[in-house]
């Protein structure tokens, strides 16, 4: 009852992850106390949603498996053209947050480094962009600190 999957390999991987997530939720649901004043309680909604996730994930996976069997493998290179770039964006963001959370860097310095680094990577270390992004990074890092703390009264990591 379903049309062909356009991304069968990825679908299979995502469905696997979603089933694992649903199982994780079902484990968490066990710790919720039973209902005491209404017929369903707090556990019912996440429990049945998790069951539905498993059911739909199996349906999507079956469809993806069928598509995979009948189609030529053309998606392998189509998923992400530049996976390293996506990974580096996430990784740099994680380092940016971790550096502030651990107290290693202040918002100002972390932001200057983050903007410069990310711009340079996205521009594939193009010299002209790197020079401009260095200026933008300093302006945004120091200017942003002033704007957020003095104008919007936000408490930034120091």
């Amino acid at each position, binding site marked *: 009852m379903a*049309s062909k999957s356009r991304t069968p390999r990825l679908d299979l991987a995502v469905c696997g992850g979603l089933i694992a997530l649903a199982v994780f939720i079902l484990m968490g649901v066990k710790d919720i106390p039973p209902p005491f004043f209404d017929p369903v309680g707090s556990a019912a909604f*996440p429990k049945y949603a998790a069951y539905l996730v498993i059911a739909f994930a199996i349906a999507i996976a079956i469809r993806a498996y069928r598509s995979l069997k009948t189609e030529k493998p053309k998606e392998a290179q189509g998923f992400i053209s530049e996976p390293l770039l996506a990974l580096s964006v996430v990784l740099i963001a994680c380092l940016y947050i971790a550096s502030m959370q651990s107290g290693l860097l202040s918002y100002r310095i972390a932001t200057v480094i983050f903007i410069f680094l990310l711009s340079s990577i996205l521009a594939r270390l193009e010299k002209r962009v790197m020079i401009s992004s260095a200026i933008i990074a300093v302006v945004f890092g120091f200017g942003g600190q002033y704007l957020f703390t003095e104008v919007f009264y936000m408490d930034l990591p120091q």
Partner: protein
Amino acid sequence: MEILNAFQHVLSPYPLMWIIIGVAGGIFVGAIPGLGGGMLMALTVPLTFSMDSTNAVLLLMGMHVGSVSGGLISATLLKMPGTPSAMMTTFDGYPLAQKGQPGKALSLGIGASLFGGIVSGIFLIALAPPLSHLAHKFGPWEYFTMVLMAVVLIASISQGSMLKGLMAALLGLLAAMPGLNESDGQLRLTYGFESMDDGFNLLPVLLGIFVMSQIIKDALEINKKGISISMAKTDRIFPKFREWKQHIFNILRSSCIGTWVGILPGIGASISSMVAYGIAKTFSKKPEKFGTGHDEGIVAAESANNANAGGALIPLITIGIPGAPVDAILLGAMIMHQIQPGPLLFQTNGDLVWSLMTGYIIANIVMFLIMVFSARGLAKVININRAYLIPIVFAFCLIGAYAPSNRMFDVWVVIGFGVLGFILDRAKFPLGPFVIGYVLAGIMESELRSGLQMSEGSFAPMITRPIAASFTIVSVAFLIYSVYQEWSSRKRVTMDDATAE
């Protein structure tokens, strides 16, 4: 009388200033492919905490109106829709610009956007008060079945597979489950982490899904550039009265379609423009010209996507259900400003509602003026190097998540939901149902539990109460229709394969 007072208020310097800022900002981000209204609105919400709630809502609403219209510029001159809702505009806008008439393509789109906005603004003002009155009669079962209908509608109508749409909606529902349950005050799914006691807050989730996932996507497509068409100084952008007169029927029909699709809970502007474009082509005397730079195609797509924004405000104001995924941000902002959209909004915050409705019309007029006078200038910046923009937007996004509660946990939530959103998007899971599911999960659960308490555990009121029954029937009908659509599409594909072999 209320409407006149509201116009007077909205046209006073301060609210008008916020509308102008919102619309101008919206047009700017809407014109740049990869940025969007949802992104700008989500980033701006934390900055509005210290603002007057009416001005904050006017600012965000202005951004929404501006971004929907701004997408027209890059769709016409770059063949890259600045916002998803401008996708249909590329079909005729770009070919017309290629034929040496970029000014005409823009002027048709800008004029149609204005009319679409005004028509839906009139519907908004005419329909919101009586619908709000009707919504007073809703009990828990009516609310539950209506939310169910909204989730089914958006999952069924979203592009791609219905199963994936439903799955995305379910994931959104699940994302709203952890933390303190408001129905009975119980903690759930916190897995012993104190930070999880508050669950995943609205703003970090929206920032992750709308902004972070888009940033990762943009980073991957950073080298993808359209072939830009430059505008000559002599190109006229101000629409001619003759053109408006010629297209008036198409504009009215497409605006009504846009408004109606907008009223259906959870469905965004891209669907409106697709439906309006399809109908305009069906009724056109020259359907074969669609896709080759035909005036009617631009007019239909642009009037419908702008009208959708006004239509989508109707369910938001009257029943507290976002008419489109982007309206979830407006809903979130209102809740953060201690305003609860729904049937009581006219009584509790009447001034705000009337300001919002009249402000919507003013925002469309402001949009028209800004677009007419700045389109030429914006045409020069749409190809801006995104290597500069992405890191700044990213930094704003992370600080926007941190600011409201000073919790680093929220910043990690942005990253987590951003990565999730990116993976789902790559696997063709629509993100709209996820957002709607997440936003509506709380109301859906609490209304179901209240309903079951009233009916002593019986689900029968879903079909025995007239209004609830009508929502249930619509939900089931849409599910059956979607299953049939998928089945027939599979049959078609199988037949095509057999023919090819």
